[in-house]
């Protein structure tokens, strides 16, 4: 395996809960709480987790679109958290993001031309002719036509918009793209188009993806390695075959068994978890999952399990394995 292109260690992002007199903060939402993982060049790391577990926050914190509270993010060896905002700005060329909502991530008042050429301009492509060329090229890469450049986003369907988003992310030949649920807002039939496109692009441009999703089957389909998040932390991380064949963490197991399979012949043991996901503003002590865990032990209530290797390159945060 190649060098890790991205190293995230002990990343934390706490949001203040504003309240009290004069909007003082009266508490924190621990959206991301001590998250560590690495991504190797050319691989697709999938991250799954239920809604609100901090996936998007992690993605945005990595890119410093929101300032992380603590921890470090190394991109090709440089610690992003140390950079000035101007340095960071320059670096953004190399790391891009695609958002979940194809409707909200394109400025409704700009034409596609403008949307895609903006990053070019920002990173120094001054000649407008060159930019036009590049926009055309990009549109073709993502499977749209050149004439689409003169349209407004609302004139496209969801899938097409997502393609525009992808074209924009590709504009400056980035090395890493963080994909924040790029397909979850799309219909199934369209979803597969985008997934295929993303795979193609990865191969063509040697991209590295961090692919965030809540849909296990999508993640499984596209990723090389998969991390499972629960309440702001990573609970399990390994390559996808290992994960799907031999899930270790009780949460991962429950999650997998809960995914409905479109095959009436498949009979599975269903693990139905009790209760709801606790609130990240008031996470349980010890292992965050202990409130719903069928195997919870006394220690789980008090000690937070370390995120450790249990097998070869199979990281799990669970007292059952330590």
């Amino acid at each position: 395996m190649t060098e890790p292109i991205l190293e995230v260690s002990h990343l934390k992002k706490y949001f203040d809960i504003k309240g009290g007199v004069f909007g003082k903060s009266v508490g924190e939402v621990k959206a991301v709480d001590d998250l560590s993982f690495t991504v190797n060049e050319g691989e697709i790391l999938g991250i799954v987790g239920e809604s609100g577990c901090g996936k998007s926050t992690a993605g945005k914190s990595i890119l410093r679109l929101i300032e992380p509270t603590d921890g470090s993010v190394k991109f090709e060896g440089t610690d992003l958290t140390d950079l000035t905002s101007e340095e960071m700005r320059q670096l953004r060329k190399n790391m891009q993001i695609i958002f979940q909502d194809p409707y909200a991530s394109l400025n409704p008042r700009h034409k596609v031309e403008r949307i895609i050429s903006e990053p070019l301009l920002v990173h120094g492509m001054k000649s407008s002719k060159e930019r036009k060329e590049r926009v055309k090229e990009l549109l073709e890469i993502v499977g749209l036509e050149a004439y689409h450049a003169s349209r407004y986003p609302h004139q496209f369907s969801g899938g097409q918009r997502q393609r525009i988003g992808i074209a924009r992310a590709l504009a400056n030949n980035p090395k890493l793209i963080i994909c924040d649920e790029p397909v979850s807002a799309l219909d199934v039939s369209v979803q597969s188009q985008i997934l295929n496109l993303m795979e193609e692009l990865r191969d063509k441009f040697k991209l590295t993806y961090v692919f965030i999703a809540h849909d296990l089957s999508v993640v499984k389909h596209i990723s090389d390695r998969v991390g499972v998040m629960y309440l702001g932390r990573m609970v399990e991380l390994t390559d996808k075959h290992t994960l799907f064949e031999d899930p270790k963490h009780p949460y991962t197991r429950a999650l997998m068994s809960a995914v409905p399979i479109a095959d009436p012949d498949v009979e599975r043991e269903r693990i139905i978890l009790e209760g709801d996901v606790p609130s990240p503003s008031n996470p349980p002590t010890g292992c965050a999952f202990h409130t719903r865990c069928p195997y919870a032990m006394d220690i789980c209530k008090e000690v937070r399990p370390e995120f450790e290797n249990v097998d070869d390159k199979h990281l799990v945060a669970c007292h059952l394995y330590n």
Partner: protein
Amino acid sequence: MLAYTSRRLLMLVPVLFGMTVITFSIIHLIPGNPAQTILGETATEEAISNLEETMGLNRNYFIQYTAYVGDLLQGDLGTSLRTKASITSEIGPRLAATMELTFFAMIFAVFIGINAGIISAWKQNSWFDFLAMVFALVGVSMPVFWLALMEQWLFAQELGWLPAYGRQESRNPIDPITHFYVIDSILHMDMKQLITTLKHLVLPSIALGTIPMAIIARMTRSSMLEVMKSDYVRTIRAKGSGQFLVIYKHALKNSIIPVLTVIGLQVGVLLGGAILTETIFSWPGIGRYVYEAINYRDYPVIQSGILVIAFLFVIINLVVDLLYAFIDPRIKY
């Protein structure tokens, strides 16, 4: 709820501070010497400097401001230049008069406004809806003082139905207890007096209440329409409940929340409009007090009048906010 209340109360502090700074500035930023203003065209220079001395006009701003706030905290609004009476004592009955008027104007605005809004939303696109909304649009476009003048002309002068001025009959004045004449006449158990008092309230209340009424009607309607489209109204209907229950129990309560905000804000319009309406209807309230003070350049009164009205406005909005939390359980802290 308690926490919320105290939070809202504490949030008032910077606002009140800012308000006093602004009102304080009024007297210190006006052109010319206030002492000259008081004494008028026959004043001698000596008299002017004497007065400056007694009013402390020659000390530095910070000290003057501290003294001003100190006085305010003790409930002392200063002395009227014109009447030399304590503004605090002069303002009391006037405040009552204004509050009575604005209260009735608000009742008028809220009652008519909300009901018109509901019916309009219920019978969307009917002729009632159309007429009510045209009326409401005209209503919001009308200058208060003009409406007041027109009312006076039509109902007091041409038709002679209602009194043209004041709060009571001059010949038969009420013996004030609370200075809220409606309450007073009830306390005196004087039916005739009560009717007279109410009659005097009609024209100014309508003049003052028309704009808020129109705004409330529009707001209620659109908020109602919004709510009627909401998921939970659909749920309620799926339960098999009738239109009436939907509208008067669920939709109304839900749509009242944005309307409540509007009502809170409209109190400001009412209190501001009082300056104009009270002048026209000779209503001895705080609005007219300020108006006369403007004419006489009685700055301490202008200053205090504005402060008191703004304070009242702030308090009413506080109450609205609390009411809000009372109606809407989602507001917690």
